[in-house]
């Protein structure tokens, strides 16, 4: 299981423009909040089957990306008590009714800025975008290029490292993830979207070799899929009506097909950018 924290005090909206409208919430380690105010988290209090699918997507994909050595935010399960839920529901700032139960949260970071990076010049290691693209393709992420889904943390020499910050729309998007079309969508889906300058990064940082290396890392991570799925609170699977075994099977199959999906050999030629065919 992921570390468990308890929602104590709402600190306002985090990103009001995004679908699940995450909140800034101080969370404590103890249910009685004896360690209040605790630590600031960003909590996704997503509801309904699609919401539960988004939370599963966050937990599983974030873990798999981290196993691959990508920088991610620290995941938590946040427990919302009856009292906290009632308080939220009395507050007009909340976009929907919150039920008591378990949700997804990450540790809030105040040392980052929202990406995507404006150019590869600002990155300490642009090559990590190749690995992120390969892993995103594996888990069927649909929106990495969107504002805020990569965060930038300062590395040495005034350049930035990329943090994979939002994995709620993997598995072809949360609506597809909890639908009967998941298998077909995952089988048909091509490469994931990424930053606009990804072709330049691929050409400048290893070309086909860099893609194949990342595919090898996906193969290693695919042996840890069970571990990642095991982090999900059992009731989320029920709420989303998603079969964990099917998810494991789809991920393992897709890991085996990644070379066909990403076609690294196409990047050996000067028009290799054509290989980046994005599924919509």
């Amino acid at each position: 299981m992921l570390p468990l924290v308890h929602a104590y005090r709402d600190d306002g909206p985090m990103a009001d423009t995004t679908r699940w409208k995450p909140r800034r919430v101080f969370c404590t380690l103890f249910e009685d909040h004896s360690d209040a105010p605790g630590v600031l988290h960003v909590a996704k209090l997503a509801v309904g089957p699609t919401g539960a699918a988004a939370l599963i997507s966050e937990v599983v994909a974030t873990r798999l990306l981290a196993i691959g050595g990508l920088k991610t935010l620290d995941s938590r399960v946040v427990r919302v008590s009856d009292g906290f839920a009632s308080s939220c529901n009395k507050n007009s700032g909340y976009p929907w009714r919150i039920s008591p139960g378990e949700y997804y949260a990450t540790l809030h970071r105040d040392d980052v800025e929202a990406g995507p990076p404006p150019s590869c010049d600002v990155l300490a290691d642009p090559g990590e975008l190749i690995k992120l693209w390969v892993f995103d393709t594996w888990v069927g992420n649909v929106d990495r290029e969107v504002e805020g889904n990569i965060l930038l943390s300062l590395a040495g020499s005034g350049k930035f490292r990329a943090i994979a910050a939002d994995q709620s729309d993997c598995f072809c998007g949360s609506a597809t993830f909890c639908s009967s079309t998941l298998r077909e969508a995952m089988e048909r889906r091509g490469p994931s979207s990424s930053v606009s300058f990804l072709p330049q990064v691929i050409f400048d940082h290893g070309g086909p070799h860099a893609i194949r290396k990342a595919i090898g890392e996906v193969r290693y991570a695919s042996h840890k899929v069970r571990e990642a799925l095991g982090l999900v609170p059992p009731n989320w699977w029920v709420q989303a009506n998603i079969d964990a075994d099917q998810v494991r099977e789809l991920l393992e199959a897709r890991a085996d097909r990644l070379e066909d999906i990403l076609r690294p050999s196409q990047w050996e030629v000067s028009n290799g950018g054509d290989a980046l065919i994005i599924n919509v």
Partner: protein
Amino acid sequence: MVETRSSSTFSYAVFRYMKDTKREIAVPIGVALWSEDAKWVGFRVVSSDQRVSRISRKGDFPFINVFAQKLDSWLVSNHLPYQDQTVTPTSDAWWRHLQKLLIHKTRLSDPHPIDCLDPEKEIESLFREIVSPEETEDRARIDHLITQCLGTKLSKTLRRGEVKGYAGKPVEVMRCFLGREATVVIEGVNLALEDAAVAADALVGKLQRVRANGSIQPSPDHRVIAIVGYVASDNGLNGEAFLKDWIEKAGDATALDVHREGAELRAETENAMTEAGPPSTFDLI
């Protein structure tokens, strides 16, 4: 009766850099100004060659630079992330939406109304007033020290503002007096700072531009008497004496220490004004 003038409605907002999110401690780093009527939009964010108190060159400026690049690209593309409706950057709605997007290091205030007559000048003065980059703070301090040296009467005679420089374009100077025989320019520089050489070079360049009124060469019809008040290290010039010499030789100026040579600076200015003759009615900008 109040004189009516045609005007456009303008709004502005302030960019702040979060130094401590938990305690909501932030430092102003820029301003934006826009008008739907005037179809005008602009922003000004502190650049890495400026200093702002509590903003670190290594730890904070990379974030500010990335933000400025992104803002620039959003303005060029006329589009913001998560924006469904078509709104232009000249509208309050565009900036309110941006305010919702800026949730990390850089934040944006609510739009505020402003009676703006000249947006190009206004955005600069808003930036100076709200952000106060250190060059401004430092310049204000030297200005104050020079005013003390000159005394009240002389300070009032020497106006602040601009004189004509190369190509007839205005050059802003700390103080000046336009006489029939010559123009007296009073300037200030801090030679105790780490980047004093840069400041000295900039000052010399400025004085050369003032002298080159209408031509690249100093004009014999436009005599300029330049007096520079400088701030030295605590115990007097300490390794930066060559910069004083440089200002005097390349800038053709008299350079005097505002702390140690205040009386001399005043006397030199009085002599210069006598040499400049009665006030000129020409060349005023």
